[in-house]
């Protein structure tokens, strides 16, 4: 477990170092995630209990959000004045995103189905 946590912290350090050295706009932790993704896809050697360690961290994930979420108390005035319309915009754009993703996949799927149908017809 300790080597898995060390491995994750090392990649986090590597990501933050790269982001700072190269002055990249992408967050260092995300670079660390992308590095680990390539590492795993390339099937490079990894600590044995890495998956279990990650699952352990994910189990506590909601607790880690809380210190940042409490910061909302500093935004009381902004939320009192803008909260309602912001709420509405967020809900509307979420529904637009769901509909757009679903339509795109349905449309591409229908095209694929037509193509395979045409393919079987010409084969006759």
């Amino acid at each position: 477990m300790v080597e898995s946590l060390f491995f994750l912290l090392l990649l986090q350090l590597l990501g933050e170092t790269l982001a700072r050295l190269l002055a990249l706009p992408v967050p260092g932790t995300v670079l660390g995630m992308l590095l680990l993704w390539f590492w795993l896809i390339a099937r490079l050697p990894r600590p044995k209990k890495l998956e279990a360690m990650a699952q352990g961290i994910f189990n506590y994930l909601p607790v880690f959000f809380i210190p940042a979420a409490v910061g909302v108390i500093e935004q009381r005035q902004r939320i009192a004045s803008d909260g309602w319309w912001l709420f509405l915009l967020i809900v509307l754009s979420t529904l637009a995103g769901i509909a757009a993703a679903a339509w795109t996949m349905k449309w591409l799927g229908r095209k694929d189905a037509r193509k395979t149908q045409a393919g079987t017809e010409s084969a006759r």
Partner: protein
Amino acid sequence: MNELSTAFSGDFSAALPSSAWLNFWHWLQPTPLFGFTLTLGAFALGQVVARLCRGHPLSNPMLLAPVFIGAVLLAADVSYPVYFEGAKFLHFLLGTATVALAIPLARHTPALRKDLVRIGAGIFVGMTVSTASVLALAWLFGGDATTLHSLAPKSVTTPIAIALSERLGGLPSLTVATVMVTGMSGAILGVPLLRRMRIEDPRIVGIALGTASHGIGTARALQVNAEAGAYAALGMAMTGALLAVILPICFWLYPRLAALF
């Protein structure tokens, strides 16, 4: 006599019986013993309340705990930066959790390869529409730059959204609230909307919910069935990874392009 009273012998307020308590209280506020303990306690209390409410979506401990902590901080007159001083150790682990998100991402990569164009297009269009629409609407309503930067990562899973908000110059706390509303609205209204659109394919339901409303949408997709849940996890992971790279580049490019014209 005890040490505390001799320590205060030169202080006028030592005459008050509460001075030892006040001294202790000022020492305690910025330590992890206050911030860390309060955070875990509030979350545990949130879990108890959620259980009593039988898992009603609004009784989520992630929603309740910040309310409890906020109430304690306001009542005890502790400022947020002082609380954060003690709670920052929990906040730090969010970064480690972000790195660990690569593990489920790698697990779902084979499913993505199988149907790359359709899934890739669905995720790309979904995340672009939800992000562009919230930015365009907020801009039309006269939102300032800080608001736009805080809203932009709305469809991104919370740990990445917080990192993005900090990097873009938004308010991480406003981003957390935005991401929560995004997740809740997608989880509650998403399935009825898709049913109305006559979409039943679990792969499409999963990608749509995971792309637009990250982890909370993924939890809802898992209730539809396991296949929808797996595709939702893929949608969530890809949206997080793609927007984490695309958003900072867009916000970096925009003022430079605008300056050209």
